[in-house]
Structures are given as C-alpha cells and as structure tokens.
C-alpha cells in the first residue's frame, strides 16, 4: 500500500518547548536555547542533603550573588555540549599537529638549555594551577544555579584538566618522556619560594565555600593575571630568547584563553549590572583576591621578567574589569 503524504498538512503544531516560547516567543529556537534554558529543576526536591541540610539540592542561597533570573548568564559562545566538544576537538587537532611537528623535528634540541630550565621552573608548575582551576570550576558547576552558568563552569573545569595535560606534555617533550621535568616542576611547586604564594592562593581558593567567589578568585582574578603575565609577556620573552618554538605548544592555551575571557567577562558584566549589591560584592571579592594574587605572583614575575610585567598584567585586568562595569 502506498501512502500519500499531503505536505500541506505537515505544518508543525508548535515551534519549540513551552518554556522556551515563554522566554523568546513563538518561533523556532536554537539548539543552545533548548539545551540550556529552564532545564534545571527548581522546586520539590524531597530530601535535604545529608551533607548540607541548610540548603535544598538546587538552591540560590549558596552564593552571596543574587539574581532575578539565573539564566541571564547567557554564554556568548553559546556552548552546549555538542558545540563545545566540536570546538575543542578542532583546537586539539591543531595542537596535536603542533606537538607532533615539534616532536618529529625534535625542536627541543634547538632551545637553549637555560631556557628549557626556565620553562620547567616557571611554566610547567602551572599544571597544578590548572588542576586547582579544575576543582574550582567543577565546584561552581555542582553547586551553582541555572544551566546557563553551571554548564559553562563544567566546560571550563574540563578545559583546565586539558590545559594541565598540555602543560604536562611540554615537560614530557623536553625530558624525552622520562617525566623528570614533571617531577622537578612539582618540587618547585611544593618547595621553591617563588611558587609558594601561588600555591597558598590555590589551596585557599579550593576551600572557599561561596561558589561564585571561588569563580571570581580563579577565573576573574588569577587567570586574568596569569594569562597576561605568562601566556602573553613571558611567551614573548621566550620568543625573543630562543624559545619561540614553545609557543607552538602553548598555542592551545592561548586560544583557549581568548574564547574563555569573552565568557568570563560577560559573567562579571551581567552579575554587576544586576544590582548595586552584586556590584559591591564583586568589587569586594576582587579587591581581596587581587591583593593576594599580586603578592603571590610578584616573585614569579620577577623571575620571569620584572616587576613591570606584573603591573602591566594588573593594568590589563583592571581594564577588563572596567569594561565589565566594575570599579568606576
């Protein structure tokens, strides 16, 4: 039997889900919208957590930041899982060919030994900072509110594990897979005076209870300074001093920072624009953590470049914060 389908009758009954229609009107929705908005549960959780009975499982009270609508934190990259992994897969493909080019041509041998030592002492220990960032972002993802921000925090958390792994691989490339450089870098991280401020900062942030504050201390303050200091200025210094090929190996993290900064800035901007109370809270957190971060990074900046490098980084961060509506 052949069935004739009358195409004229194949009009959709509705364009999208009702909660998407309530937000954006009766029209076809994007995959980002359908995957993100109003997906998280809001009421009737049954049981209070045995580990935190003062809150519901999903609870806006776990941060001092107050939002009328937590879905205001739209991700400018509009990452849902599919777009997120496909973007990173593309970037890792480039990174992979960079790493294998570097390895195949044995470019390590062209890098002067003192530069290699500098990389192991000043760059590789950042894998542990990335590890702290992994914990802090996953923390926000698990206790934050509303899919718009919590999914982005998870993507960020996993990215940081990826960054840590790329940094580790730089060490393995330099030491011919003996892993001696990783062990050495870890000793610096644990015992070298220039790293102790940063390590104390990371440990303190991992213990912060307010998830938004933890995001501020990590993604807004420390990451902004490290990006400017290490991945822009120190990278330039390496290029000028015979270590230009290292840039091939940090390219992933540099590009990653560009796309992530866009998201971080927009989160800060949206939270600050919501209310004066939020703005004050953010400024207070940022001032507090900025003070600690500048102090912690000072010996590292001196060793990498000079004191001016750190003040350049602070100035760049201040500019971003200003653009996001803070401290003005």
């Amino acid at each position: 039997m052949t069935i004739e389908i009358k195409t004229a009758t194949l009009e959709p009954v509705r364009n999208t889900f009702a909660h998407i229609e309530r937000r954006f009107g009766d029209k076809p929705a994007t995959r980002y919208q359908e995957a993100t908005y109003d997906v998280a549960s809001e009421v009737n959780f049954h049981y209070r957590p045995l580990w935190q009975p003062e809150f519901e499982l999903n609870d806006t009270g776990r941060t001092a930041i107050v939002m009328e609508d937590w879905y205001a934190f739209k991700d400018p990259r509009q990452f849902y899982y599919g777009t997120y992994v496909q973007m990173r897969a593309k970037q890792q493909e480039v990174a992979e060919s960079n790493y294998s080019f570097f390895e195949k041509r044995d470019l390590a041998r062209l890098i002067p030994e003192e530069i290699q030592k500098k990389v192991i002492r000043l760059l590789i220990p950042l894998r542990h900072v990335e590890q702290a960032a992994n914990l802090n972002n996953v923390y926000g993802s698990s206790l934050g509110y509303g899919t718009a921000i919590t999914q982005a925090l998870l993507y960020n958390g996993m990215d940081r594990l990826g960054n840590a792994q790329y940094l580790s691989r730089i060490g393995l490339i330099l030491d011919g897979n003996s892993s001696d450089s990783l062990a050495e870098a870890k000793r610096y991280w644990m015992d070298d005076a220039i790293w102790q401020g940063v390590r104390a900062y990371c440990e303190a942030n991992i213990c912060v209870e307010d998830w938004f504050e933890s995001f501020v201390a990590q993604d807004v303050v420390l990451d902004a300074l490290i990006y400017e200091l290490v991945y822009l200025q120190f990278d330039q210094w390496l290029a000028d001093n015979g270590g230009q090929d290292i840039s091939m190996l940090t390219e992933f993290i540099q590009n990653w920072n560009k796309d992530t900064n866009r998201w971080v800035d927009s989160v800060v901007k949206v939270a600050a624009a919501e209310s004066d109370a939020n703005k004050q809270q953010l400024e207070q957190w940022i001032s507090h953590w900025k003070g600690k971060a500048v102090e912690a990074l000072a010996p590292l900046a001196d060793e990498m470049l000079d004191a001016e490098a750190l003040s350049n980084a602070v100035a760049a961060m201040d500019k971003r914060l200003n653009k996001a509506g803070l401290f003005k």
Partner: protein
Amino acid sequence: MPVFALKPGYQGERMDRVENFGGNQIVYFGWDEHRMFCAAKAFPLPPSMPFSAVMEQIIPEAFGQHPEFSQINWDSVEWMLNNEPFKPQLDVSLEAQGVDHKSLIRFKTPGLTGYNGLGV
C-alpha cells in the same frame, strides 16, 4: 536508626503532619482482591465525620464504578483498620472509633470475588 549525616541531628521536615491538611486527616480505603482499582484510595476527611457519611459519600465515590458494587451485602462485609479486625459504628466519628491520620481501612466482600470471579 538515625541517618548518617555530616552534622549530628539531621531531622527532615515531616511533610504530611496532620496539621498540614487544614483540619482534615488522610484516610485510605481499599477493597481487597478487586484489582480494577489499582491501589487503595486516599481521602482527606474531617476526623469528626461519622462512619455513616463515609458509607454514603466516600465508599460509593471510591468504588461505585465496579460492576459488583451494587451487589455488595454490607452486613457481611469484613473490615480491617490498620491490619486489625474492625467493626465500623455508623453514628460514631472516625476519630472516636480509632481512625486517625493516615489510617488504612480495608474491606473484603465474601462471595464477590471480582469481575468474572477473577479478582479484578
């Protein structure tokens, strides 16, 4: 046994305290071996409600859809209240004959064994 919680003294809020039902209490009614009704049914009833009102209003509403309902000989019905044999007193309130909040009242109808005698 208390739950293992991070801090001692975990005590969840009792959601179904009788005070939450606006003066009513919940009573469940079930007709044994009549699976046309998938489960016993719940009703919010004033504790002062006499059993005669239960017989006139609640029981027919709950079970009147069954083809055997009209054939029930109520004099031969066997009642259970919270797993104990029970003789309802028609002119006595629920409360006064021991039917308290979240009580379960079940009844058997000897001779009536469900649709086609199959427990349905």
